[in-house]
């Protein structure tokens, strides 16, 4: 069988031109493979050298830095241990420190960094987004006072990342003249979650509550920004926001905003607000019903127990869970035990769970 096949060798078109192209491709791949190996080895050597360099730099700076931070040496003492061209590395070093310290020591860090920050600020005009963001972070962490104008400018940077880094830096310190600008700038960060924006802006502190109230009351602002404002105000326990929340919860149709307003009322609302909220326990939107139940559980009284019991049968589990939690918080353990015995299987499971939590806590 093989012998006749051998005669067909010439007929098999596998030995010609297409392979030349293939061989060139393979040659490139082979070179690539060698390049990857060499690059990795060089990279390893370089990384090890950088690590050694850092270790030596830290060994030089750490003792003096500690003396400066405890007041045993003036900030200028650090300059003595720096070599020419060390500015960038020193800024990186200070940024690492900056993440570990707070308060007065942080202010001192800014003072130490001031003569060297020019090295980072040059990157504020870089074409690379990440470099601009890194530079913004450096001036925001180490020189927010000196570079405030640049930070405010960065809020208008075309890259959301840079805007975000600037907003984080500016949120660390309350300044009445800039606060609205900072809050409104975050409306550009459409992809960020509400949770992250709230965490960021809450750092402005309760003295910024007036600005958040202004945003919350302004129906022309984007619903997401108003949602953030409501959540921040809830975090501040801002009593003055209660009436605005009550008014807006009736005016808006945005679900997230309505839920945030009800959460705000849960924190700062009063018995006077209950009438409006009670109407919302039959809202078609389960998220709103759940938030209304929670608010009533927090503010309501004995007269609302029947309403909470009705909510235990809500077709959406979440609403029922909120109702059970509200009943638990009312302190009526006897009622919970009765409900666990007398109602349907779902309520029974829920009540047992809630009672277990009481026993465990």
């Amino acid at each position, binding site marked *: 069988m*093989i012998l*006749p*096949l*051998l005669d*067909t*060798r010439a*007929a*098999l078109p*596998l*030995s*010609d031109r297409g*392979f030349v192209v*293939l*061989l060139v491709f*393979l040659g490139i*791949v*082979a070179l*690539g*493979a060698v390049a*990857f*190996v060499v*690059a*990795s*080895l060089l*990279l*390893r050597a370089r*990384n090890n050298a950088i690590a050694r360099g850092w270790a030596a730099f830290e060994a030089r700076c750490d003792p003096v830095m500690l003396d400066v931070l405890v007041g045993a040496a003036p900030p200028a003492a650090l300059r003595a241990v720096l070599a020419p061209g060390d500015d960038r590395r020193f800024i990186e070093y200070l940024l690492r420190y900056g*993440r570990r310290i707070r308060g007065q020591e942080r202010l001192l860090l800014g003072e130490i960094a001031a003569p060297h920050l020019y090295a980072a600020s040059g990157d504020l005009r870089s074409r690379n987004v*990440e*470099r601009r*963001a*890194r530079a*913004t*972070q450096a001036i925001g962490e180490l020189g927010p006072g000196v570079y405030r104008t640049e930070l405010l400018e960065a809020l208008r940077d075309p890259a959301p*990342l840079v805007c*975000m*880094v600037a907003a*984080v830096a500016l949120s660390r310190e309350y300044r009445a003249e800039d606060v609205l600008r900072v809050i409104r700038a975050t409306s550009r960060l*459409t*992809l*960020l*979650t509400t*949770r*992250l924006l*709230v*965490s*960021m802006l*809450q750092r402005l502190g309760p003295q910024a509550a007036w600005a958040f109230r202004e945003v919350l009351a302004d129906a022309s602002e984007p619903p997401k920004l108003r949602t953030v404002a409501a959540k921040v105000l809830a*975090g501040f326990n801002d009593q003055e926001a209660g009436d605005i929340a009550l008014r807006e919860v009736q005016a808006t149709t945005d679900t997230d905003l309505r839920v945030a307003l009800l959460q705000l009322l849960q924190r700062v609302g009063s018995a006077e607000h209950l009438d409006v909220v009670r109407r919302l326990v039959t809202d078609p939107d389960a998220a709103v019903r759940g938030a209304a139940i929670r608010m009533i559980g927090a503010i309501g009284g004995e007269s609302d127990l029947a309403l909470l019991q009705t909510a235990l049968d809500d077709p959406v*589990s*979440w609403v*029922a*869970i909120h109702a*059970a939690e509200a009943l638990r918080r009312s302190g009526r353990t006897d009622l919970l035990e009765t409900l666990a015995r007398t109602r349907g299987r779902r309520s029974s*499971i*829920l009540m*047992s*769970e809630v009672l*277990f939590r009481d026993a*465990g806590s």
Partner: protein
Amino acid sequence: MTDLLVRLVWVVNVVTLSYFTILATFYLVSSVLAFRFLRRYALRLKSVDVEDLISSGAAPPVALLVPAHNEERSCVESVRALLTLNYPEYEVIVVNDGSTDRTLDVLIEAFDLVRTTRLPSAELPTQPIRRILRSRRHNNLWVVDKENGGKSDALNAALAICRTPLFCTIDADSILEPDALLRATRPFLEDDRVVAVGGIVRVVNGSAVEQGRVRSVRLSPRLLPRLQVVEYLRAFLSARVAWSELNASLIVSGAFGLFRRDMVVAAGGYSTTTVGEDMELIVRLHRTQRTRDFVPRVVFVPDPVAWTECPETLGGLARQRNRWQRGLLESLGRHRRLLFNPRYGAVGMLAYPYFLVLEGFGPVIEIVGYVAFAVTLLIGAWSPTFVVSFVALAVLVGIALSAAAVALEELTFRRYPRWVDLLRLFTAAIVENLGYRQLNQFWRLQGTIAVLRGQRHWGSPPRRGFGPPADSSA
């Protein structure tokens, strides 16, 4: 007859060479994309201190869902490690999926579990649940004891009682690094469209593990785990990074993935009729959400790490690869509507065809190609150029791509600090292509045949636990 055979061999050879060339091109492009992304990602990590924001209140509560079936040897250590993660608010839901060993008993003893109830927040059909237990020592530890139904069924049982906005799936024998959750939740906070995030899964074999933590990273002294380290690096640092960049990820590893609970529940939870539930879920999320005109983002992030034990025997590895291949084909077969469907964007036009042709049919093409190559040599219908091209494409390209993956690791995370480990990785990158890769394709071909024959057993490799290997001297 002779003429027909020669023509057939010619066609197969052309298909095989084309397959190798396309595969090599894809991996080269993905390595370049990954290089670009990883550099940018490293800079981004430096520029935004999101961890600080997260720890100050932005962190969404997370539930860790841990299916466990006959894990009595490692489950207590794993759960202990999970209870010490650096994350502000999370709970651990372990599902004892009808274990026939003492898994449940050791959990009850170790964590003082008592019976309780918990109202489901979602209706997902599962095998009957026997009881729900909660720890008296750790308020955030729950155990669901249910009848055996497989991993997907166990995940659905945990998902049904999960109440947090995000949940994380992790295998009972995997180890999460303490800050893995913090790092993995970050994409959810930075982009509202993110529905799933996958972290990197690394091979723990050979590393020192104490009290559920990886204390020092070392390569295993055994060859088989080392080869898998290179494979994992290539799969995660190159391919998954590139697909994530194109927003066309079709898989988030079941060993470590974070998901938005509402999206997964709306999609119907995990499918219990496939062995590739992790991939099937992602493909289904793409499909269901894009049908609703929402373009979900499935993101891979390379810095949160889950360490997992890889098979150390050929038999165990064969079963694992066979299962992975079946999962892939079942997932693709179930969602074939995506193929070249522009409605699904890069997922339909790029990722699906890639996975179908190069990953799904790849083993068939490759194995048949090797046979055709042998026949070509046998009948003497070869030229030196052909032989060189074939061998080079089958071996050299593989070496280049594996070397690129090791280079990416060195460029970014450098988890293997010893020079000797780096050199061993490069050696493994070469050796991998001289038999191991071909063996792998053979196992995957068996998986393909199993799908065609309708087999559906799980095929878990045996585990040996996190202790040092018997001959661990390196």
